[in-house]
């Protein structure tokens, strides 16, 4: 067990575990966001619960932050190591002949996601933390009603932000189109279920980002 992160397979295993965790988080995040399309009240209730329940705030949130940071730092480490493994590149290389664009560009789709996460933090997370823990207002209220839904809708007024949002989720879909199935292979799950897992990964990789894009466009176009 000692020093598992010092081995190539150990690092890939850790990478896959952090990725699985992010996949579960993303699903949960989507489940709450989609409520905003159907019912402002339901979205408010869920947001308030997630924003104030101690186990979410003090247990899950730190784990999530660690998971994200671990994932992209390990992504960079692997990228650097892999570049070192071939110092002289080919004069002519036909990567498209044997592998998908997504699989060869995980670092670029990953960097696009990272840029989005930074924007997302500035947009939602920092104001949230400021209101709750700096200002000390845990009520979730503004002018006598829950503020979450209004804040969400307001953010999606700007076509620029919605545009950035759409682009980021396209990159996320590209990342997951290779990544989700790849993570199963990393943990050693390549067997009679592989075909099913591939289909499931594909549905998730396209469906979830498409769902996030739909939510953004919905609020942008309807204005509420």
């Amino acid at each position: 067990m000692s020093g598992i992160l010092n081995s190539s397979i150990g690092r890939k295993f850790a990478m896959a575990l952090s990725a699985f965790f992010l996949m579960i988080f993303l699903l949960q995040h989507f489940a709450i966001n989609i409520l905003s399309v159907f019912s402002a009240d339901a979205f408010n209730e869920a947001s308030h619960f997630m924003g104030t329940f101690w186990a979410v705030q003090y247990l899950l949130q730190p784990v999530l932050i660690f998971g994200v940071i671990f994932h992209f730092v390990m992504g960079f480490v692997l990228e650097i190591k892999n570049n070192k493994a071939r110092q002289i590149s080919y004069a002519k290389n036909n990567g498209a002949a044997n592998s998908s664009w997504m699989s060869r560009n995980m670092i670029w789709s990953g960097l696009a996601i990272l840029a989005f996460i930074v924007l997302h933090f500035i947009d939602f997370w920092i104001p949230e933390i400021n209101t709750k823990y700096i200002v000390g207002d845990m009520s979730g209220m503004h002018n006598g009603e829950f503020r979450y839904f209004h804040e969400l809708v307001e953010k999606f007024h700007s076509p620029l932000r919605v545009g950035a949002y759409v682009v980021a989720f396209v990159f996320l879909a590209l990342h997951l189109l290779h990544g989700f199935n790849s993570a199963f292979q990393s943990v050693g799950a390549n067997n009679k279920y592989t075909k099913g897992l591939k289909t499931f990964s594909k549905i998730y990789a396209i469906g979830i980002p498409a769902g996030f894009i739909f939510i953004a466009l919905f609020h942008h176009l309807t204005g509420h």
Partner: protein
Amino acid sequence: MNLTLKIWRQKNASDKGKMVDYSVSDISPDMSFLEMLDVLNEQLIEQGEQPVAFDHDCREGICGMCSLYINGEAHGPDRGVTTCQLHMRMFKDGDTITIEPFRATAFPVIKDLVVDRSAFDRVQHAGGFISVNTSGNTIDANAIPVNKHDADDAFAAATCIGCGACVASCKNSSAMLFVGAKVSQFALLPQGQVEATDRVLNMVKQMDEEGFGNCTNTGACEVECPKGISLENIARMNREYLKAAFKG
């Protein structure tokens, strides 16, 4: 056919090396790729130039010696073949063909298109064997029953010829397909069980020390492997490794 060849020339391991253009004419489409290079080399020798050094031995797809990165792919554009089995009919008259050595930090160039693949030997020495007493009372291997499905998978893994096309094709120069095949070959059989833990730990350790990259599961190796070694072997190695590592 008449062809233009862009070939990597490098005098020795410390030379910087560069691509050099050559032309060959009257190449038969029925020639193998190596025979085409033989024609070029005869021509170079006649002109008093150094022939192009390249690896080969059996010339029938079983030894794994021939290498070459041809038009951006290990062993060229055909599937399931080594370079010695690649025919010139895969190309058209007037084509320009780029020929480079397999590139990986763990496979340094010795001369021209010849690379040092002894890193594979060292990985193999680290655990790619079973220790059997051959003093005369050896049990016949066939006396131990093996599930047909496992026997087939072990045999398929054992067809790896150690050519290194998987490393050359991988964007990370990862050797996981090769090592996965070598680990699987024994992991699937009862004879391999006794040393299973040490085998996978030691082989992976050696693989990492040789400077091969990490697997991103792009699957390029499987596509380019002349023996059709499956990615399932990498997954099996991952399972074997994790089992062994958590055992301590």
